[in-house]
């Protein structure tokens, strides 16, 4: 099974990579870091956030490095002006609509790419109310960048439970349970794989969230069952 390696050039460096490997992996092997947001080593890559785009000579559009595979003779630029402008704009658009205050990796990228968090001051923000419907974790979709990791680990990437999916379209798109059912009434088994892969603090263990809200450990452990369970009904949820 020894396929010949593919030869390509990334940022002027000659790179050899196994056929079928992604541009992202080939670059990593060569010590070239391409930024990612939605990508996670243990999830299926979908090229959703487009922060990993690179310029491939001869290609009409920028190419997402996390899903595009290497081809023989490719010439790739990971830091061209077009690439950097694209990344900057993506970050500025994320800032315009999502609360990124708990996404330090994205905040670092914003510094690196000189993104102006106030570039689109009048933009409509996505600010659905926080969902506190179970004793294990909260969902604050105002912080959600729709990276899809939670949906995927709930499905075939780990748990095969399928409690989460998208609802809505376009700007209204949000991660949701089916029919916005409270989490305990879905197929959810509360494994928290989704919490484990969330990059922005949109999903958070309940006790961590309570601690942030200023509760002391004693106060947290003194909550009643009904307080721990949160809202049982569907009131206050967007749809």
């Amino acid at each position, binding site marked *: 099974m020894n396929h010949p390696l593919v030869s390509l050039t990334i940022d002027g460096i000659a790179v050899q990579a196994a056929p079928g490997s992604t541009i992202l992996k080939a670059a990593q092997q060569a010590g070239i870091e391409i930024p990612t947001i939605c990508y996670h080593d243990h999830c299926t890559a979908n090229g959703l956030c487009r922060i990993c785009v690179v310029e491939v000579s001869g290609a009409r559009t920028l190419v997402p490095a996390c899903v595009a595979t290497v081809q023989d003779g490719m010439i790739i630029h990971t830091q061209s002006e077009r690439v950097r402008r694209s990344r900057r704009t993506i970050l500025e658009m994320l800032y315009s609509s999502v609360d990124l205050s708990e996404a330090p990796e994205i905040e670092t990228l914003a510094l690196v790419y000189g993104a102006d968090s106030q570039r689109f001051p009048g933009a409509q923000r996505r600010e659905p109310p926080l969902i506190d419907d179970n004793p294990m974790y909260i969902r604050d979709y105002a912080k959600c960048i729709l990276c899809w990791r939670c949906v995927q680990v709930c499905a075939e990437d780990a748990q095969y439970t399928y409690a989460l999916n998208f609802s809505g379209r376009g700007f209204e798109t949000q991660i949701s349970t089916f029919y916005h059912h409270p989490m*305990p009434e879905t197929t959810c088994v509360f494994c928290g794989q989704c919490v484990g892969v969330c990059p922005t603090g949109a999903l958070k263990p309940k006790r961590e969230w309570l601690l942030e809200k200023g509760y002391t450990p004693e106060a947290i452990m003194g909550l009643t069952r009904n307080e721990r369970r949160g809202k049982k009904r569907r009131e206050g949820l967007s749809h």
Partner: protein
Amino acid sequence: MIQPERVVSTVCPFCGVGCNLELHVRDGFIYKATSSFNSVVNHGNLCVKGRFGHDFIYHPQRVTVPLIRKKPQRPGDRTQAFDLSEWREISWDEALDYVADRLVDIYQREGPHAMAVYCCAKATNEDNYLLQKMYRALFRTNNVDHCTRLCHAASVVALQMAIGSAAMSNTAAEVIENDVFILTGSNPTENHPIIALQMKAAVRKHGAKLIVVDPRRIEMVDYATLYLPIKPGTDVPVFSAMAHVILKEGLYNRQFVEERTENFEAFATSMEKFTPEYAESISGVDRNLIIQAARLYATAKNAAIYWALGIPESSHGVANALSLINLALLTGHIGRRGTGLNPLRGQNNVQGASDAGAMPWHYPGYQRVDIEENARRWEQAWNIEPGGLSRQLGLTTTEILSSVGPGGVRALYIMGENPMMSEPNLNHTRQKMQELEFLVAQDLFINESGAFADVFLPAASWAEKEGTFTNTDRRVQRVRQVIPPRGQSRPDWEIICDLAKRIEKRLGRPTTAYWDYRHPSEILEEMGRYVPEYAGVTYERLEREGGLQTPVWDKQHPGTPFLFAETFPRGRGKFHPLDYTPNAEMPDDDYPFVLSTGRVLEHWHGGTLTRHSWLDDLFPEPLVDIHPDDAARLGIQNGDAVRVTSRRASIVLRARVTPKTNPGVVFIPFHFHEAAANLLTHDIIDPQAKIPEYKAAVVRVSKARPEELGTRAEPQPRGRY
């Protein structure tokens, strides 16, 4: 957004999978658990217990001060005290002096047979090694056991008879290398959730074919190529009929049988009677399914068998397990990667507690107590005069309680177990607990058993001490201290050392067995000097290399991912002829249902930990699963209060009407004191393994009034299967 002060790597304290945890701490409060995606055990995945179930550490009802009963307890009228008002706080010195005085008094008056101890499969290898050492070296008794007796005892006995070992032969993660695997008497999506993920991936991503043989239509049936809905307790006919088909159709591995096994002829003859037709008449499984399953398993390149407590927890549990072992020997599906005989161990450290000698017939390392050479070895290890250690097999968990009374066991020491929930036929257990002369409980909470105690010793939780656990695939991993012990609680190993020194002094022994350990690493080192399988396991290596899979024969040995590549520990694998024995109780007109008991995803065993966790919010009350056809016949709706009655007792709880159980079978989890399933079970045991038949008491089900329910918990609607 808060930043942790520390993130500490350790191992999950719940099931035998042994998931790696990273606990995030702030102000001594563990507020989050994550897991490294590079973990070879769980690849960053956790279940609800591992991810969210560690809050029991901080529960307001946790006891962190030594306690003694205000009213002295006497054999015969010993009572349960759940309320702190019935206890008096005392100092550690007072508590340990008192315990030492009482234990030594009883020992000197009654002799070694009056002493007994329950070790704990939740505690570390080091804790268990020391507690069995204390009882063997000081009280000269082998009345040492733990919940393995109620768990895989029959699997262990059968594996030792047939191949000479008693653990999973292969690594759990090898399931993706199976072409075919049989899952029986096991509900991994709830009981070994991370192994279940690997099984699902094996089917969906790696092309494995799954055969489920189970009296419940568990979630894994959704992933199965074949599902054999077996009646409880008919495992021997079904698996022997598979062997019958494999023999008749010449699908067995002749070379393997000739080179690696013995007793084939006698076995083959005994399989003659197990025709698929005969098996169908007993088990209710369509004969064609049995034939298909036999062909699928036998003709696979790599096939493995995974089982849990549905196999051993039976009055013929050893025979059940042997019927599986026979299949592996017949087809040669053992001794290679992606094959094997894999009993999925329940507790986080049931493998380790067994390895560490918390068993009545074995010293650490499965060294029989009745073999002179072994006794001599441990006498030397513990500075004991020749002939000092008992050569008599000790009493098992169930036998210990049965023998309580004048002339029998008088004093019982319980570390972390809860027999008042986990023993079968609890009314009998209660009577025996009442008859004890002296009872010590060492735990985090006053559970149903500790409530009977004279003295309560507050132990540190797993997050408050150092040690090692050995998981289901024999992987020894480090348990690390994350926070200081709460209140005055102390690590089990420290309590035992301090107590043992006091006892040794009172006994006036001329030499000491040694109790001056400064760190648990020294305890493991002592064990490794006398247990060859652990010879190469040291804390330094565990720090450097992560987990090590036993056997690890020396300091350079890399560990053993799968067993029996060349030979079996007993030499040749031995086939065992089998006969079908019905369950001790069979359904009749008065008791038409078979009751199976077990666990649910959100809870752990007797509930000492998880009923004191927010996990309880997700599953707050006992439920009996009943099939829709049976429910309709009895006029029972989902959520109705029902009475479940066996020959021994009756409990009232809500019904969950679900196709997850098959017609004729009802299922009750055993976590709930409000309607304790083990009031209903019977204490008939397997004659060889002494394991009770938890999976097959017969019961009747009738409607009850809601006010008869033992719980006032508001039901939590759940959508999970």
